[in-house]
């Protein structure tokens, strides 16, 4: 592992952002804490997706599957007498084990096939939650034990818990970027055959990334379930979230350290802005904006080499007339 100045800088910037977020917990009101918690949650999911979708280049749509598994594992564990902390661990473990079991066959698929297979995980997960009444409560859903304490204390607790998980995801990304594992994921995205030809155990790396991603998503789902204290299949295995997460990372920059966070925040702000201003056409307008951003900066806010883009934009007005003149002449 290298630890040069630039990663020390990245760590410092990231730590400062999270420290500021943690300090804000003192002053934020209940509603703001809720917004902060869901932002932190999106960041976790984005960073988790980024390992598989960003660094490794596998277009996973399984985010909500692991999120739901974590939510239900937490609920079931607590209903069987586990404490909150044990239930969260169980949730992370469940996400990891299921990611490994499903990942082994699924990661033999590539591209579109993998995307379709992974989104099917969300559907299958929801159907199981819907129909396995004895374990999951079926379509009615499950109540989780409420946390003792004042509403302020409880929202602060979950805000800080989610923030801590987001920081963990950030730190893991930063660490893995510098290791042979992270390097390997980038190689896999570029050329899987060439990666195995240089001696990389490609399949093991793919499963490892999928498991890591699954654990983080499941833990986010677990904290979420404890916070809302009630889960139902269509909320825990949410098909919209599973699609929104990759879009957020694309906006921010796939396979970058800060891209998932920037993309997540950017998306939420954009969505709120569009909601507030175009109430009737919000999804259409949001969609158009997303397409435009992805079209013009496909590498995302953080992945784009802005200096090149800007110099290209500066040059273009001079070129246009000369081309026209060429055609006319």
């Amino acid at each position, binding site marked *: 592992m290298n630890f040069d100045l630039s990663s020390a800088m990245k760590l410092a910037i990231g730590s400062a952002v999270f420290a500021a977020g943690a300090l804000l917990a003192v002053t934020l009101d209940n509603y703001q804490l809720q917004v902060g918690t869901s932002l932190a949650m999106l960041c976790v999911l984005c960073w988790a997706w980024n390992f598989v979708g960003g660094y490794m280049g596998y277009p996973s749509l399984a985010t909500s599957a692991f999120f739901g598994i974590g939510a239900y594992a937490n609920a079931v564990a607590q209903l069987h007498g586990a404490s909150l902390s044990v239930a969260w661990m169980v949730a992370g473990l469940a996400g990891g084990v299921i990611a490994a079991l499903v990942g082994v066959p699924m990661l033999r698929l590539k591209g579109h096939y993998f995307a379709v297979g992974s989104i099917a995980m969300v559907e299958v997960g929801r159907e199981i939650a819907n129909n396995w009444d004895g374990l999951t409560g079926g379509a009615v859903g499950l109540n989780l034990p409420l946390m003792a304490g004042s509403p302020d204390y409880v929202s602060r607790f979950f805000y800080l818990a989610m923030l801590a998980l987001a920081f963990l995801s950030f730190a893991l990304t930063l660490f893995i970027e510098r290791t042979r594992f992270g390097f390997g994921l980038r190689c896999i995205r570029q050329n899987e055959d060439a990666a195995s030809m240089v*001696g990389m155990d490609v399949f093991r790396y793919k499963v490892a990334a999928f498991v890591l991603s699954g654990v983080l998503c499941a833990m986010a789902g677990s904290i979420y379930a404890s916070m809302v204290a009630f889960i139902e299949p269509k909320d825990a295995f949410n098909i919209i979230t599973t699609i929104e997460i990759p879009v957020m990372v694309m906006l921010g920059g796939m396979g970058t350290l800060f891209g998932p966070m920037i993309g997540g925040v950017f998306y939420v702000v954009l969505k709120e802005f569009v909601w507030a201003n175009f109430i009737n056409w919000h999804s259409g307008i949001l969609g158009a904006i997303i397409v435009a951003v992805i079209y013009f900066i496909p590498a995302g806010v953080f992945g784009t080499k802005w200096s090149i883009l800007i110099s290209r934009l500066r040059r273009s007005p001079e070129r246009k007339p000369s081309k026209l003149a060429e055609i006319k002449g």
Partner: protein
Amino acid sequence: MSVEMKTPILEIREASRVFGGVNAVNSVSVSFMPGEIVGLIGPNGAGKTTLVNLISGFLPLSSGDVLYSGKSIANLKPHEIARAGIARTFQIVQPFSQMTVLENVMAGAIYAGGLGMRAARDKAVECLEFTKLASFMNSPASELALANRKRLEFAKSLAMNPRVLMLDEVNAGLNSSEIDEAIDMIREIAARGITVIVIEHLMRVVTSLAKRAVVLHHGAVVADGPTDVVFNDPRVIEAYLGNKFASRVASKKGAA
């Protein structure tokens, strides 16, 4: 010590590969000695690349065996074979195109070479200097011209610290002086004790590099021996130029 007294580093025993009903490689047996440069030649579709794919584990054998230092590697996965010390380049170059030239070569040093990130970097720089790519170190691999991409494949496989190196048409599309440089590099590598198997169309490369040539035709070995002898073998001339031309050469020789 004569070459015959050593044990082969790589031994292929009756290797076959069937695609549908076609025997792409048909019961090929051939061995390679440490430090030897061998030309593996044959017309298009002779099964040269398939044989390389079989050795490197990229394709499973239909039957037969491949021994490396006396042990069977037929059931190993490609990455295990690469780690064991058998490196190959691809005829159609396979760079990690969005990564830098340095990172491409580092990949070989990290996974097959088993080095840490820092040591891999040093090793990669060394390989880039050897292949004269050091000045492109920080450019994306996608920006390299074809000749340099071929060299990148070469540098990447060198960084793997191999004992056997299979170069699949590493000189195709290069100009004359580039080929001369490549020939020098290959000689230097073999001098380090690495077995180099050169898969080539260009006769000039094979004749100037390899003392020994193996000729494949329709998936089978039709000749294996000293390069000058093999190139005058009527079966080889027939394989390359057809039987009409071969008989004309034969009658000319008879007349002379």
